[in-house]
């Protein structure tokens, strides 16, 4: 399940640390919220030990306006979902909000709108008019991705990897026919991996991504966060944030 025992130990240590930290904050009656995100440039990344990206900026502004304390940490997507589901005072973002996930968390929404496309191999283009045209093919996605669940739910053959960019190599080695990926992060992953897959064959899905919080989060905290987010859309902060990171609004 875990890639290596070292990784596992690091994960457990981090989890213990944030648990102890959150518990002590709770004991002091301070409403500190542990926010978890995952690496997905341009939305969130760690460069030279410095957390940066669209989500990092968004969280800072959101919690400042809501007058709540928080701590931001990075974990793999699948783990941030599980950890947030199991631990009080935890929130995770950006998480694809769907009917299936609705009851599992409480939500602050929308923090990000994403478009997902199907990329094909450079030398084997697969023109698609409808999503259904992709039914005969093997589609690659990554673990914990809502879009993988979406495609599996509709009867598509989906192969999941631990990290999204592993699909580029899978595609190049013809182990999958199509790669289902968020378009902006796919561009960055292609650059990073020196790959050029061109434009997606079909932009097939629009996802509302949100901040998912443990169900015990107090309603007042949730309402403050939601009204802060609404205000950020109304006063133009969000539009500027999209522009800053060159993400189409």
């Amino acid at each position: 399940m875990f890639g290596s025992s070292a990784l596992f130990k690091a994960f457990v240590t981090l989890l213990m640390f944030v648990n102890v930290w959150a518990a002590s904050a709770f004991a002091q009656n301070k409403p500190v919220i542990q926010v978890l995100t995952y690496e997905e440039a341009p939305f969130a990344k760690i460069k030279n030990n410095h957390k940066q990206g669209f989500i990092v900026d968004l969280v800072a502004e959101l919690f400042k306006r809501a007058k709540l304390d928080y701590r931001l940490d990075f974990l793999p997507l699948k783990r941030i979902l599980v950890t947030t589901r199991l631990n009080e005072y935890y929130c995770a973002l950006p998480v694809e909000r769907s009917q299936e996930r609705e009851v599992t968390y409480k939500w602050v929404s929308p923090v990000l709108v994403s478009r997902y496309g199907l990329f094909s191999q450079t030398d084997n283009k697969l023109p698609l008019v409808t999503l259904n045209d992709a039914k005969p093919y093997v589609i690659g996605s990554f673990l914990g991705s809502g879009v993988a669940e979406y495609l599996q739910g509709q009867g598509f053959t989906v192969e999941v990897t631990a990290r999204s960019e592993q699909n580029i190599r899978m595609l190049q080695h013809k182990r999958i026919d199509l790669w289902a990926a968020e378009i902006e992060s796919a561009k960055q992953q292609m650059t990073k991996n020196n790959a050029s897959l061109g434009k997606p064959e079909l932009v097939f899905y629009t996802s509302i991504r949100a901040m998912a919080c443990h169900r015990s989060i107090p309603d007042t905290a949730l309402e403050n966060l939601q009204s802060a987010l609404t205000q950020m859309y109304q006063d133009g902060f969000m539009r500027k944030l999209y522009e800053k990171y060159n993400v189409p609004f």
Partner: protein
Amino acid sequence: MAFRCFSSYLLAFFCMFFGFHCVAASQIDSANLWIEEEFQPSTLSKSAQIAEMNWFIEAARPYKGMQIRVVSETLNTHEYEANRLAKAFYQITGIHVVHELTGEDDVVKKMSAQMLTGQNLYDAYISDSDLIGTHFRSGKVLVLSDFMQGQGKQVTLPSLDLNDFIGLKFTTGPDGKLYQLPDQQFANLYWYRHDWFSRPDFKRQFKDLYGYELGVPQNWQAYEDIAEFFGYHVKTIDGTRVYGHYDYAKPDPSVGWRISDAWLSMAGVGDIGLPNGLPVDEWGIRVDQCRPVGASVARGGALNSPAAKYAMRKYIDWLNKFAPEDSKRLTFKSSLKWLKGGQVAQQIFWYTAFVPDVISSNLAIVNPDGTPKWRVAPSPVGKYWRSGMKSGYQDAGSWTILKSTPLKNQQAAWLYAQFVVSKTVSLRKTMMTLTPIRRSDIDSQFMTAKAPYLGGLVEFYRSNARDVWTPTGTNVPDYPGMAQYWWRFISDIILGKLTVDEGMDQLANKMDQHLFELSHKQGVCSPQLNPIQSEQIWLDKPGSPKRFDPLNQRGRTLPYQEAINVWQ
């Protein structure tokens, strides 16, 4: 075929030498092919179909090459549209439609997100007409009746024939304007095993036990008696355990809709009035003129009234006593397997959108000749229900376009919306998916021929009942915001975290609180809460909220034919 080949050569000749309108000509060829191979049967003659498609080709010319995005819930009807009709539309008009399918709650959330952020997420939505109360108040939805006269006039199909749509009253606001165009409709009807109910041994045994005939239950007492009869007295049929009642109750948005859509209306929570009770509707919300004034009894509403609590108690009691244990783990989507498996005697209401899933001849509930062993009939009603009230729920998934979408995208999306409900396409779509929207389709000879295989669906849609089974109405001012409270509180009641009294009281208070918040945000017909008064003052007045009725119903049933005669 020879003629088509000759036409193609001729077309190629003209393309080579004149070089214009060739693409349109290939589009005409595509249209002919789709008419020939897919869009049959139709209520139009082939020449009228060709004329209609020619209009689409011409009207779509300025939008050719565009890509537009629409979204709908995942139903057979929309799968057909997304997989087949979107492709046909692309080949005929050159407009590429990405028709997304997702959960019903997701559609609502996405539309709300576009309203909140102003981002153009989709160019059109197929969204339930339950949101009509939200749309006419929000000012964020394109008013279709105005659009068709104004900026959408050039792209409005001359043969659209609005009068042919059976559901326009559900998508028209109190201001008389049309906000949405129906795309598919289905109703919540009583479902039962007609073959089991017709067995002489069961009929005799039932009469001995309960003192009246086994038949289509007319009230909740009869439904309960039949549930007990099959679950506790019959128990097994051909060696298989059978159940007298069936439902779904997993914490999920769909369990909220189950209660808000139909349970309370069938119990008789609201007032007399169609399509929804006035001044109190089936959500228990009272309006004064068009302004919502409260959901709790203390403010004149009925959401925590004796009728509403009676409805919830029956839901919980029947779930625990008569339904398979698995029911508590099922949602709207996963619930069908038990009916298909042939272990259920009846379900108090059932979404007829599922009819295509229960008519395959390889199922245990279908006869070898293809006729069903099941029937649909009017649902039984609770003890607070009175004649003149809505009898159940009807879903009208309808095209909705937001004002925040750029005009050109609105126009291109409107073309696609009309295409999938056009008379060229509509009857074929209806035959495939059984969610009719046009009177002409329902009355067609093709539906007559199909009727014996659909268990009563055609009879329902040919009767006045299609006006008595109605969607959520205009009393609900913020459907996306308020619908979430239903499943949260109902789930807590199901899980035993709250009693029925606690849950319905808290739900009513939450709705009041939400109405209060809206009173500062909405303009036209915004909520204006009544002051809190003694509940008894409201309960002593005529109409809803109705005072506690201590009397029990006496079970009453009718033979199937008589039961569906009430639809005439």
